[in-house]
């Protein structure tokens, strides 16, 4: 029971990242009709917003300590971050410690801007081109972004920890009436799940309860008619591209303490997120979220030793690596439009 609960939590946690990325992908596909293979790169850029802010916060004043020497025997250069100089040691170290949550504020305008530039500068020129062209250009763009990040930050992962107060783990079992230490789960992963759920709810609320969102939904259903009503739907869709970029970026920012960011992390998520979108149903926002969580949980269960052992006995080794694709095949065979796909999407 403990192990099952742990894997459910794990699945929800993994699924959070899949769902957030898939939500952004679906938003872009549903509004602009573009298959955006650079979406994983936006997730990675969000992570590097957190890395950048944490590096900015430790920009230091250098003084020489004649009493100590460095590895070559030269007088030691002592670095004191400017934030500590300006706000005092205690407040300065708290600001540095909270760099990841603070990066949310930093990432939102940056990612909106990146999304705007990406859409206006490149992707809009491919709206009327075949999907294959869109995939090629966005995939190329993802590689370019990746290489720029690698040139700027190096190839190795950069540790960007959560604030001290959220490090370590939480006795989740006690919360639901189990004995102590039965289900221990990392604090930050629980926060990540809560954060993702909030963002997903906010996006749905925005689309459901605001006039802007209503127009966007109408445009997704019938772009031409909305245009005939005198509404500049293109402008709204560009804004939605920015929103999708910001959602991917925020998912990336909050992911940094879970796995140290590296330039390749976007690609690691991209393929799985596309499977999530297809399983959920192309263009379906609830489908993307549902499939994200469902495949995350399945992937976690498939990693259990008991499950792996069972499938190995059936001559199916490494089930944890193929489970998502197996399920995708089964879903698409039984429901060709995905779990919640709409008729007419990518069917012309």
């Amino acid at each position, binding site marked *: 029971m*403990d*192990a099952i609960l*742990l*894997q459910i939590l*794990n699945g929800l*946690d*993994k699924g959070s990242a899949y769902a957030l990325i898939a939500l952004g992908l679906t938003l872009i596909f549903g509004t602009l009709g573009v298959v955006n293979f650079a979406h994983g790169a936006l997730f990675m850029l969000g992570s590097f917003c957190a890395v950048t802010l944490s590096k900015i916060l430790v920009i230091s004043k250098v003084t020489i300590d004649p009493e100590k020497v460095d*590895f*070559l025997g030269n007088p030691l250069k002592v670095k004191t971050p400017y934030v500590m100089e300006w706000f005092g040691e205690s407040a300065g170290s708290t600001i540095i410690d909270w760099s990841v949550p603070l990066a949310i504020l930093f990432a939102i305008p940056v990612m909106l801007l990146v999304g705007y530039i990406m859409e206006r500068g490149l992707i809009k020129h491919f709206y009327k081109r075949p999907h294959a062209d869109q995939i090629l250009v966005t995939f190329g763009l993802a590689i370019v972004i990746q290489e720029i990040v*690698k040139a700027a930050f*190096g*190839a*190795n*992962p*950069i*540790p960007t*920890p959560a604030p001290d107060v959220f*490090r*370590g*783990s939480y006795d989740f079992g006690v919360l639901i009436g189990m004995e102590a*230490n039965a289900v*221990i*789960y*990392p604090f*930050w*992963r629980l926060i990540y799940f809560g954060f993702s759920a909030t963002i997903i709810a906010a996006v749905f609320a925005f689309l459901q309860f605001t006039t802007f969102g209503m127009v966007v939904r109408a445009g997704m259903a019938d772009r031409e008619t909305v245009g005939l009503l005198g509404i500049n739907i293109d402008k709204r869709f560009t804004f939605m591209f920015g929103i999708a970029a910001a959602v991917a970026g925020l998912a990336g920012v909050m992911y940094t303490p*879970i*796995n*140290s960011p*590296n330039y*390749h*992390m976007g690609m*690691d998520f991209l393929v799985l997120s596309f499977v999530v979108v297809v399983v959920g149903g192309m263009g379906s926002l609830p489908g993307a979220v549902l499939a994200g969580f469902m495949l995350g949980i399945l*992937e*976690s269960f498939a*990693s*259990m*030793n008991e499950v792996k052992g069972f499938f190995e006995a059936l001559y199916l080794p*490494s089930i*944890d*690596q193929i489970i998502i694709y197996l399920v995708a095949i089964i879903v698409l065979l039984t429901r060709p439009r995905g779990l919640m796909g709409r008729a007419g999407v990518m069917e012309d």
Partner: protein
Amino acid sequence: MSKFTRRGLLKSSAVMGAGLAMPTLITSPVAAYTNEPTGGSVTLGFNVPQTGPYADEGSDELRAYKLAVEHLNGGGDGGMMNTFTSKALKGNGILGKKVEFVTGDTQTKSDAARASAKSMIEKDGAIMITGGSSSGVAVAVQGLCQEAGVIFMAGLTHSNDTTGKDKKANGFRHFFNGYMSGAALAPVLQNAYGKDRRAYHLTADYTWGWTQQESIQAATEGVGWETVNNVLTPLATTDFSSYIAPVLNSGADVLVLNHYGGNMINSLTSAVQFGLRDKQVNGKNFEIVVPLYSELMAKGAGANIKGVFGSTNWSWTLGDEGTKAFVKSFGEKYGFPPSNAAQTVYAQTLLYADACERAGTFNPCGVGESLEGFEFDGLGNGPTLYRKEDHQCFKDVLVMKGKDDPVNEYDALEIVEITPRAQVEYAPDHPMFAGGSLGKCNPGA
């Protein structure tokens, strides 16, 4: 009427062709071996990951290679050439020829590594290939060099197979291996954590992970530990949470992470996040062990590495004269201390050049013979032997621990023990290294 006939054309062409070829046939000596240098320079091929997950390690290796070339050609302060016990190198290149180099990008992929090595041999005329930051790559490139008839001086490769079942006559490894890590670590782990321990292994699913896990399991069981489970994790895994979660209720009180590079950083981070290091199991503190460390990994893992045991081939904090000379040269040139990957490839370049000088030839068979059974000191690892039977270097191994109070980013690891060479030696026919043979050296052309 023209007397131009088809038969006449063929005859004239044959005569003209033979005439044109004659000077070449008379004047060009037949090369005795692949890429025999004929001019005033000799070209070495540095095949390192310049892109991909180990690109930072590749960059550090490339820095060290460039430093070695500078020193071989008489530039800089000479570095470890001054402390090397063999005095064959004079700072005038190799055998009087200026050392030049070409570089290739392995991308940490066997196919790409073989392609770049092939290109350096066939197009650039490289007489020796060196580098790599992965055992999969090293084994693949070593095989290619054997076929092509050039020497391969392996860089960072830790799998037992490189000088075990996949060893080749043209390949030489300075770096230590999984068996040596186990032999060095086990007694230290026993002293620190006792004999009654239950270990759970997470292992990267490829040649290096398999052989390291086998070595560590054998060594720790040798001091009384029990192995609870060994779970293979795909190399592409980035989120290890679903592999860490089962450890919590497995009854194990030690987690051994047979992971390297980004895999190790992510798995260790997950383990710490799940509170393993704060946990008490079987009445003991839960412990984590990372058998193979590197400075760059330690930097990536940050505070998570504090108090965690592992092993390395070399450390810039060693106090011997060779290490001091190398750290000074490297530090003054680049502004930070070298990694153990950098020291390995620097040493391999000097060892190759020295072997050529002592053999008096670049012929791979002569160079190989010169390296076989060669004993030396002054390159940072104490007295070292290049064993004839398997082309594996034997030297002291360092047991390291993540430092509790590092003073800077280069100070993440501290030396716990310098395990003497005798303790990590094994017979050439040891079962963990069985199944292959060096074969005959191949000079190529």
